[in-house]
């Protein structure tokens, strides 16, 4: 709209200038023409009168001639004629209305026209027709014509010009506004809307504003750009879709791999005790065993069955860890409790436990028994890594990088984890321990539970020196009582 306004203003200004100039020039011209006509008329009149006056002067004397002129003036008040002596003194009746110096041309016998202003603001055209009397004194007829008529005419011309300019400006404004709206504003608005749509990522709507002007060409350029962008977006979407599909396939493969891993682990964990049970049962069934041997076999069968039950229970724990009920847990109390529970085994294996608690009492929202199991699993893992002797350290503090996270570090000085094993230690059934020492589910279960509490476990381990398991959990601010 602003552009249209600016163009309109410029064009209007141009129209005003041209019309004004034209009016000025035509008025000037008309004025000149009118003045010329008037002076010719005055000259003709003056010459006629001079002829008569000269004749009267010669035949009937000066007085008759002058009074003729006076009588004649009564006929037309706008056109007054009188006798003048060019050399007349100031104050005498025949003195010309202008100074003698301005009338020097008259001595050559030429006519003279002058435009003069009176003291009260009226303009007059003075025309002098010279002649000489018998003595050679220079005199003549002075015709005085009022220019008021001319002024009225010019005023009227000016008024008309002003009206024409005003009408031209008004119609130009109207036309420009109307046409600017149709030719510029509307297509520009549609172009802007389209550009905004494209900018916001919507390439669906096409735009055709028609016409072969600059805006039409711009529109077709934008349309072309939209097509290219839409194609690029389509290709991008297609690539993303393919990527997602690939990822899904990969995930499916991973799920299958996990299932395979789980099955292999289960086969190994359950296959051996089953083998022992079936073998021992067969021995008993053969009735060739002594009573003592049979009793021994039966006891082993019982032990192996128990071992399988334990494995099954752990597997179920792993699979069925969904039902959790979170409550506010004071972590320091829980850690003290865990240390208490570990006491018999650490005592037996001569392991020292160091528990470092902060002065502040931090809380987390957690399932108490799950969190306890996580801590026990991690601590047991450390204890088993040390065997006999050594020190297990439990530290509680705020996460150094995120003050909304609580960090529990469990550090052992055991055998550590090799770089090869490190990526697998959370895999179900992955174990580096002797058969019967661990099922390889403890850390998997711990990690599963920690993820459900929006936390994570990080490991820092150097083989031969020990490992540090760092468990981070979101801190409970204790503000909302849910």
């Amino acid at each position: 709209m602003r552009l249209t306004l600016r163009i309109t203003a410029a064009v209007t200004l141009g129209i005003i200038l041209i019309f004004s100039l034209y009016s000025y020039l035509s008025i000037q011209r008309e004025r000149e023409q009118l003045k010329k006509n008037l002076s010719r008329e005055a000259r003709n009149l003056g010459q006629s009168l001079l002829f008569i006056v000269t004749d009267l002067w010669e035949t009937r004397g000066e007085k008759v001639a002058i009074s003729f002129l006076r009588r004649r003036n009564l006929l037309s008040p706008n056109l007054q004629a009188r006798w003048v002596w060019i050399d007349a003194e100031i104050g005498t009746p025949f003195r010309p209305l202008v100074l003698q110096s301005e009338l020097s041309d008259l001595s050559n016998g030429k006519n003279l026209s002058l435009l003069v202003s009176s003291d009260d603001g009226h303009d007059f055209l003075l025309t002098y027709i010279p002649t000489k009397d018998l003595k050679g004194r220079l005199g003549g007829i002075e015709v005085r014509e009022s220019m008021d008529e001319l002024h009225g005419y010019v005023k009227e011309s000016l008024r008309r010009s002003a009206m024409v300019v005003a009408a031209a400006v008004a119609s130009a404004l109207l036309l420009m506004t109307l046409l600017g709206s149709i030719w510029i504003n509307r297509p520009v608005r549609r172009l802007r809307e389209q550009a905004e749509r494209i900018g916001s990522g919507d390439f669906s709507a096409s735009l055709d504003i028609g016409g072969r002007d600059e805006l039409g060409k711009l529109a077709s350029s934008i349309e072309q750009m939209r097509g290219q962008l839409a194609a690029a977006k389509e290709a991008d979407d297609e690539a993303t879709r393919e990527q997602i599909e690939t990822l899904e396939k990969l995930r499916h493969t991973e799920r299958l791999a996990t299932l395979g891993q789980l099955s292999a682990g289960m086969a190994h964990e359950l296959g051996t005790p089953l083998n022992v049970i079936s073998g021992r049962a067969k021995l008993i069934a053969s009735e060739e065993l002594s009573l003592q041997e049979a009793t021994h076999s039966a006891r082993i069968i019982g032990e192996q069955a128990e071992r399988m039950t334990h494995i099954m229970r752990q597997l179920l724990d792993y699979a069925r860890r969904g039902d959790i009920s979170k409550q506010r847990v004071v972590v320091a109390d829980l850690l003290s409790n865990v240390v208490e529970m570990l006491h018999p085994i650490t005592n037996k294996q001569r392991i020292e436990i160091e528990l470092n608690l902060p002065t502040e009492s931090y809380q987390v929202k957690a399932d108490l028994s799950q969190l306890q199991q996580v801590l026990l699993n991690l601590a047991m893992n450390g204890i088993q890594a040390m065997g006999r002797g050594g020190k297990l350290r439990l530290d509680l503090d705020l996460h150094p990088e995120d003050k909304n996270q609580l960090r529990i570090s469990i550090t052992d000085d055991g055998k550590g984890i090799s770089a090869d094993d490190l990526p697998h230690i959370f895999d179900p059934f992955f174990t580096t321990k002797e058969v019967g020492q661990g099922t390889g589910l403890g850390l998997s279960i711990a990690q599963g539970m920690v993820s459900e509490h929006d936390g994570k476990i990080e490991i820092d381990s150097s083989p031969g020196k020990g490992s540090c398991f760092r468990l981070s959990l979101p801190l409970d601010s204790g503000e909302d009582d849910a």
Partner: protein
Amino acid sequence: MNHLTPDNQRPPCVLIAEDDQALRELLSFAMNRAGFSVACCNNGKRLLEILENGIDDASTAVDIVITDLRMPALSGLEVLEALFDRPERPPIICMTAFGDAKTHQAAIRFGATHTIDKPFDIDEMIDLVRAVYNYKNSQKE
């Protein structure tokens, strides 16, 4: 019970490598009852040592090896690999709980005489050991 054909006076010796104590004891007991003399170990490294140096004082030769594939220290496959270019090695029967064809193929490729899936029938295992032992003897003659 004694339908084995010992080439001298001593009973044939079976070396059992298995990390699970209960299974090791069961195999040992069953093999003993079947007329074999039995030696045991619980990891692959020890198994390789025994095969290289003999049992205790090298007076008793190992006639047949029964080994688990998944063991600490050295796995059964690693032991097989180490013994691969040793023609005098005794026949080796591998036990596996993984059961997939690839594991069996790998064991055979590395020189195992036979592979058997866990859990197995203990009588079948005894029959297998006897068959392998008899075949070994018939090859010698």
